[in-house]
């Protein structure tokens, strides 16, 4: 693994760990998802540079469009759960009543 690949690999792993260990807020988990998407974008942009193939430059722009869709949907879920539960604290999201 070269040192430049190590940088976005590390950022992706750290964001995955942040998503796994999120503590209080739902929006912290959404921010970690966005950080994962950012590191994937950088990785997919380095592919056409290293392989010198211009047509693979389409892939990061395409994935950015769908990541905007995902961020919008996640924030809509956040708004809906804040409206019903009063806040976006994760320990309030318990339908199991135990």
């Amino acid at each position: 693994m070269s040192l430049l690949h190590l940088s976005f690999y590390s950022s992706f792993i750290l964001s995955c760990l942040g998503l796994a260990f999120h503590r209080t807020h739902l929006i912290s988990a959404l921010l970690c998802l966005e950080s994962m998407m950012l590191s994937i974008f950088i990785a997919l942009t380095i592919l056409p540079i290293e392989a010198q193939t211009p047509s693979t430059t389409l892939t990061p722009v395409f994935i950015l469009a769908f990541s905007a869709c995902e961020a919008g949907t996640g924030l809509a879920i956040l708004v809906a759960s804040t409206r019903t539960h009063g806040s976006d604290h994760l320990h309030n999201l318990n339908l199991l009543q135990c």
Partner: protein
Amino acid sequence: MAYFVLLLGVGFVLGGLAVASNPSPYYGVVGLVLGSVVGCGLLVSLGVPFVALVLFMVYLGGMLVVFVYSVCMAADPFPETWGDWRVLGYGVVMVLMLIVGVVFVGVECWKTWVVTVDSGSIFVGRLDFSGVAMFYSLGAGMFLAAGWGLLLTLFVVLELVRGLSCGAIRAV
């Protein structure tokens, strides 16, 4: 000059760490802004400024603005800071797990060179401009699929936040 690119890579990792160990969503957004600014600098140094500008406008100027006002709705009025020992503990544990994983995989630390756009030869038609312009020629199907997905997401979001008694998410 390659060391500057690697320094921007270090800044990118610090942005990811700031998002992962955020004491409060306000600081998570700061880390995300730092990571995207440094990522754009990285892409410009590698020779693809068009993709960097796309990232700036769509990600930083579109998605992060929406996240910022959602954070203003959803976050505490008295947040924790990075000085708390619990937040620092989280950050240190995550970095230790990352180091264990990286030592397992193995890093070739002598490879300090960076491949840029002009590593092969100098081109008049630039790689990023001619690549993304294929959205309008051979990639027209992808373009229409992305547009259709974005239109569909608009209706999904409208259904999710409609509320009253017939919304998609209700706990009562």
